[in-house]
C-alpha cells in the first residue's frame, strides 16, 4: 500500500461525508478522553511522572549508542540475537531470512506499528510466508486490506456492521445465516478463528513498547492476550522494534508504564504487560527456542540532534489523536499512512518525506490540546511549525498563499501604509456588509463563506476612531 498523505484534502473531504466513520468517531470522542481524565484524576502524581518520563527518555536519547550496545550484550547473554537494520528493506529481509531458515509457513503477529511502517505483511506474502494478524483490530484491517486508522485501536474507523460484513466475506466455512449483530458475537468468532492460527504458527512476531537495557528484555503492553500466545507457542519469537524504544531499567519502565496505559485507554494497567528475555531456558517446558530482536533505524538517528529530537520520546499512547479536534472530524485514514493525528503530522514527513506528507503538519489549528495531554511532554505544535518553516524556506506552500502572506507582511511592517489599507478595507467591507451585518458570500473568501457568514466590520478602524477621539479630547 502506498501512502496517500498527499491527497489529505480529498481524503478529508470523503471522511467528512462518510456516515459510518462519523458515527465511529463520535464513539471515540465519548470514550477515550473521559476514561483518561478519570484515571488521571485518581493519580495526583501524574504530572510529576510526566516530568520523570521525559527526563528518562531524554537521558536515553543523549546516550542512545551506549544503551543500544548494552541492550544487545544482554540479549546475547540470555541466548538471543540482535539484527541491525538501517532501512525498511533491511528489516523485511532480516525477518524473511529467519522465516526461511526455519521453514516457516505462517507467522502470527502481535500488534506492531513498525511492521506497518515497513509494510512487512505484503512482503512476507509475496515471498510465500503467511502473516496472520491476531490483535482483533489489526486482524480486521488485515482482512479489509486497510491501514490502521489509530495507533492503539486500528479499526476505530469502523462500525460493527462493517466488521460483520468483513467477517462474513472472509470466514467462509461458517453458516452464512448466522447472526453477527453485536460486539460479543463478533469477538467470539474472531477468538475461535484465530485460536487455531496461534496453535499452528511456526513463528510469532511482536513489537516492543520498551527495550530494557539492564536485562536485554523487550516488553509488550496489550489487553487481548494475543501478543502472549503469539510469542509463547511458536518455535521462534521475533521482536520488531525501532531504536528509540530503549529504556534503562525495569524501574524506569515502570515509571513510563504508569503514564502509558492511563494516557492510551484510561486503564490503571493493561490486562497483559509482558517482559520477554531470550528464548526458553534449558529447563522450561514452553516458550520459543529462538529470540530475535530486529532493530530498525529508518530515520530515527537522523532526528537526533535536530529540532525533531523530542519526537523520539513518543511512547505511542495515542492520547494526542484522541484529543485532536481535527482527527475527531476526519479520522486516521485521511492522514494517508501509518501514523495519524498530531504525532503522525510530525513523524510522517520524516519517514515518507515532506513532499508526500506536506499537508499533515499544516492541517492543525495549533490548539495545543495534543501537547497538553502528551505524557512525554512533546511540543507537537512547535514541531509542526518547524515543518512549516522548512516548507516555507523550500517554497513548497502554494504560490497564492505565499504571495498573500508576503503582501500582508509588507503592510504589517509599514504602519502608515497599513493604516491606510486597513482603513480602506474597513470602510468598503463595512459599507457593503453593514446593513445586513454580515456577508453571505465574498469574493476570494469562498472557503469561509460556503458554510458560514462573515460578520461585517463596523466600518471605521479602531486606530482611526482612537485618533479622532484623541483630537476631540485635546485639540
Amino acid at each position: 500500500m502506498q501512502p496517500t498523505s498527499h491527497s489529505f484534502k480529498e481524503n478529508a473531504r470523503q471522511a467528512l461525508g462518510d456516515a459510518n466513520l462519523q458515527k465511529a468517531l463520535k464513539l471515540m470522542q465519548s470514550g477515550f478522553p473521559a476514561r483518561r481524565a478519570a484515571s488521571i484524576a485518581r493519580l495526583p502524581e501524574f504530572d510529576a511522572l510526566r516530568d520523570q518520563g521525559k527526563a528518562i527518555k531524554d537521558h536515553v536519547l543523549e546516550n542512545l549508542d551506549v544503551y543500544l550496545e548494552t541492550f544487545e550484550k544482554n540479549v546475547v547473554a540470555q541466548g538471543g540475537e540482535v539484527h541491525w537494520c538501517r532501512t525498511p528493506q533491511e528489516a523485511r529481509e532480516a525477518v524473511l531470512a529467519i522465516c526461511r531458515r526455519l521453514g516457516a509457513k505462517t507467522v502470527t503477529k502481535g500488534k506492531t506499528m513498525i511492521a506497518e511502517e515497513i509494510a512487512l505483511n505484503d512482503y512476507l506474502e509475496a515471498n510465500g510466508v503467511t502473516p496472520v494478524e491476531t490483535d482483533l483490530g489489526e486482524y480486521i484491517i488485515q482482512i479489509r486490506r486497510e491501514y490502521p486508522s489509530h495507533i492503539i485501536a486500528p479499526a476505530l474507523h469502523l462500525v460493527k456492521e462493517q466488521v460483520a460484513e468483513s467477517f462474513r466475506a472472509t470466514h467462509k466455512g461458517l453458516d452464512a445465516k448466522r447472526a453477527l449483530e453485536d460486539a460479543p458475537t463478533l469477538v467470539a468468532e474472531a477468538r475461535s478463528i484465530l485460536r487455531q492460527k496461534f496453535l499452528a504458527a511456526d513463528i510469532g512476531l511482536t513489537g516492543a513498547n520498551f527495550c530494557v537495557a539492564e536485562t536485554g528484555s523487550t516488553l509488550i503492553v496489550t489487553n487481548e492476550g494475543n501478543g502472549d500466545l503469539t510469542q509463547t507457542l511458536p518455535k521462534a519469537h521475533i521482536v520488531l522494534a525501532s531504536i528509540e524504544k530503549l529504556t534503562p531499567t525495569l524501574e524506569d519502565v515502570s515509571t513510563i508504564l504508569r503514564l502509558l496505559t492511563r494516557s492510551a485507554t484510561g486503564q490503571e494497567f493493561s490486562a497483559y504487560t509482558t517482559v520477554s528475555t531470550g528464548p526458553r531456558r534449558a529447563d522450561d517446558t514452553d516458550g520459543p527456542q529462538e529470540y530475535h530482536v530486529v532493530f530498525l533505524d529508518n530515520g530515527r538517528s537522523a532526528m537526533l540532534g535536530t529540532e525533531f529530537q523530542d519526537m523520539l520520546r513518543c511512547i505511542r499512547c495515542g492520547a494526542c489523536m484522541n484529543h485532536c479536534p481535527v482527527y475527531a472530524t476526519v479520522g486516521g485514514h485521511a492522514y494517508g499512512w501509518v501514523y495519524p493525528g498530531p504525532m503522525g503530522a510530525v513523524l510522517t514527513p520524516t519517514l515518507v518525506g515532506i513532499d508526500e506528507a506536506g499537508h499533515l503538519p499544516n492541517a492543525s489549528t495549533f490548539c495545543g490540546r495534543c501537547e497538553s495531554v502528551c505524557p512525554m511532554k512533546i511540543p507537537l505544535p512547535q514541531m509542526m511549525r518547524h515543518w512549516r518553516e522548512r516548507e516555507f524556506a523550500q517554497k513548497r506552500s502554494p504560490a497564492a498563499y505565499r504571495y498573500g502572506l508576503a503582501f500582508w507582511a509588507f503592510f504589517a511592517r509599514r504602519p502608515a501604509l497599513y493604516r491606510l489599507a486597513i482603513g480602506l478595507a474597513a470602510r468598503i467591507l463595512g459599507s457593503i456588509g453593514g446593513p445586513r451585518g454580515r456577508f453571505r458570500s465574498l469574493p476570494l473568501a469562498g472557503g469561509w463563506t460556503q458554510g458560514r457568514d462573515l460578520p461585517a466590520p463596523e466600518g471605521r478602524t479602531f486606530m482611526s476612531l482612537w485618533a479622532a477621539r484623541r483630537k476631540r479630547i485635546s485639540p
Partner: protein
Amino acid sequence: MPDTPIRVGLFVTCLVDLFRPTVGFAAVKLLEDAGCLVEVPARQTCCGQPAYNSGDKSDAKAIARDAIEAFAGFDHVVVPSGSCAGMIRRHFPLLFTDEPETRAKAEDLSRRTHELVSFLADVLKLDRVPETRYAGIVTYHDACSGLRELGIKAQPRRLLQSVDGLRLTELPGAETCCGFGGTFCIKYPAISDRMVADKAADIAATGADTLLAGDLGCLLNMAGKLTRLGSELRVRHVAEVLAGMTETVPPIGGVAAQG
C-alpha cells in the same frame, strides 16, 4: 487604586482594529475604570502570527521587532486577545534564541504583556467589574491559546459572575477548538467548517442566548456559523459585556435593532 496610575499600552490586534473597534474601546474603558492610564502606540500593526504559523520566520521576526520597539516603556501591555497575547508572551522570545540582545528585549516585553481579562483578574486582582448589568444567559468558549498558553479559564467566569442579571451556563466542550486556527480556516475550510458546526451544535444545546469569548477570530468564526444557521444567539467579545457596552452596539454578525 494605585497612587501613580499604571501606564498601559493597548495592543489592539488587527482583527479588533479592522472588524470590531468596540472591543478596543471596551478594553480601554475597563482599564481606565480600574485606574490605568491607557495609551495606544500608533506604530503597532500585527503580532505576526500569520507569518509565524506559516513558517515565515523572517517576516515574523521583523514584525516582532517592530512590536517590541512600539511597546517599549509601558508598565504593562494589554491585549484583548489570547492568541496575540500568547504570541507575544510565549513566542516572541523563541523567535530570537540566537539574538541575545533582541531576545532580552522580547523577554522583557513578554513579562509586561497580558491578555485583557487575565490582566484585570491576575495583575490588578479584580474579582468584579464596576456596576454593570447584562440580562442574559451566557455561555463561554475557551479560546485555545488563551487557555493553554496563558492559563485563562477561571478569570473570565469569575468576572462575568459579578455582572448583575447575568447567568452563566457551562458550554460542554468549551475547551474544544472552534476550527478558526488563523490560517487553518483558509487552508482547510471544509474541516474548519465541520469543527465550527460541531461547536455551534454544542452552543445551541446549552440554551444560552449569548455566546462570549476572549478572541475575535474565534468569535467571527462562531458568529458566522450561527447566523448562517439562523440562530438568534447574540455573540460578543467578553470585554463588551464586562464594560457594559452592549446597549448601543449590535452583536457580532448582527444588525442594530430597528426603532
